[in-house]
């Protein structure tokens, strides 16, 4: 095919694609306009049905709880995959950080500055509390187990940033994070199976809803699922961070 023929073919294809995209965009609702009925239905029914005022959480953990279970296991499998791929291989050794062969001749690694260490340590506690709050308040306000879990995991990352790799390893041994991750993911799935055992649909809100709507202990299973998700997410992210840190700091190729 000559370059000229190729160009003509390309132009024909691209004009067709552009025509389709313009046609499609012409039928899209205007910016900020919502036409579907489901949002309005959920808005009107959710607080009455679930006693959760965090409607997004009610959707995530109740109305489409099954989808969330799937997303949960995507993260679970991803973390397990990272741990498997980044294991210490046969031709690699685990050296100690800062070992002699690590230093280029005449050059030392730049030490972490006092400012970074102090502010990282100062933020660790507050970040952990915020993460815990987000995880346990999905039913009352915009938050949820995923957000809270990631925030709590970044508190653990701050410990590493403060220059305490050894402390980081001590508070997050791989056995512990893997177990906690499995408990979180398994708790969510078992909760769904439990609702089947008592004769309700999968992940139905079978627990007492509590009163008033919007209280921290209201909303039945929604708060519980958010908690399980938070536990799973914090462990998954700490596990992934741990594997990456180990690869960067400890594992050395033997060659």
């Amino acid at each position, binding site marked *: 095919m000559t370059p000229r023929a190729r160009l003509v073919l390309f132009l024909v294809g691209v004009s067709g694609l552009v025509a389709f995209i313009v046609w499609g965009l012409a039928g899209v609702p205007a*910016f*900020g306009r919502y036409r579907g009925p489901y949002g309005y239905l959920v808005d009107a029914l959710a607080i009455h049905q679930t006693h959760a005022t*965090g409607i*997004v*959480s009610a959707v995530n953990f109740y109305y489409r709880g099954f989808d969330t279970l799937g997303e949960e296991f995507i993260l679970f499998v991803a973390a397990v995959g990272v741990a498997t791929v980044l294991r210490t291989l046969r031709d690699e050794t685990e050296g100690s950080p800062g070992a002699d062969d690590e230093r280029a001749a005449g050059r030392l690694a730049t030490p972490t500055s006092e400012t970074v260490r102090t502010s990282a340590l100062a933020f660790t506690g507050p970040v952990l509390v915020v993460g815990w709050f*987000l995880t346990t308040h999905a039913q009352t306000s*915009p*938050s*949820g187990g*995923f*957000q809270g879990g*990631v*925030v709590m*995991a*970044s508190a653990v*990352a701050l410990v590493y940033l403060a220059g305490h790799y050894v402390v980081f390893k001590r508070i997050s041994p791989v056995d512990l994070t893997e177990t906690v991750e499995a408990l979180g993911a398994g708790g969510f799935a078992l909760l769904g199976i439990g609702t089947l055992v008592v004769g309700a649909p999968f992940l139905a809100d079978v627990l007492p809803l509590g009163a008033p709507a919007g209280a921290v202990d209201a909303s039945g299973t929604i708060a519980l699922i958010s908690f399980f998700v938070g536990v799973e997410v914090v462990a998954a*992210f700490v596990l*992934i*961070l741990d594997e*990456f*840190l180990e*690869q*960067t700091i400890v594992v050395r190729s033997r060659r």
Partner: protein
Amino acid sequence: MTTLEVLVLVLVGAGAAVVVATRHPVRQVVLLSMYGAVLMVLFLVLQAPDVALSELSVGTVVLPLLLLLGLAKVGGSRT
């Protein structure tokens, strides 16, 4: 669209362009982290605070940290 929404959308577009146009990997990661913060503001302006929270924690903290660790492993900072 309100003026604020237009302003933030333009910022998001410009930020994305800056991230793509940056050639140095480490600088690119730092800019990506800032771009995550801009994206978070967009979600906040569009009244999706829970998505904004996810973007804040994943886009500005976890993703850049993982990328930096990966770069440190493969020695990308030397290029």
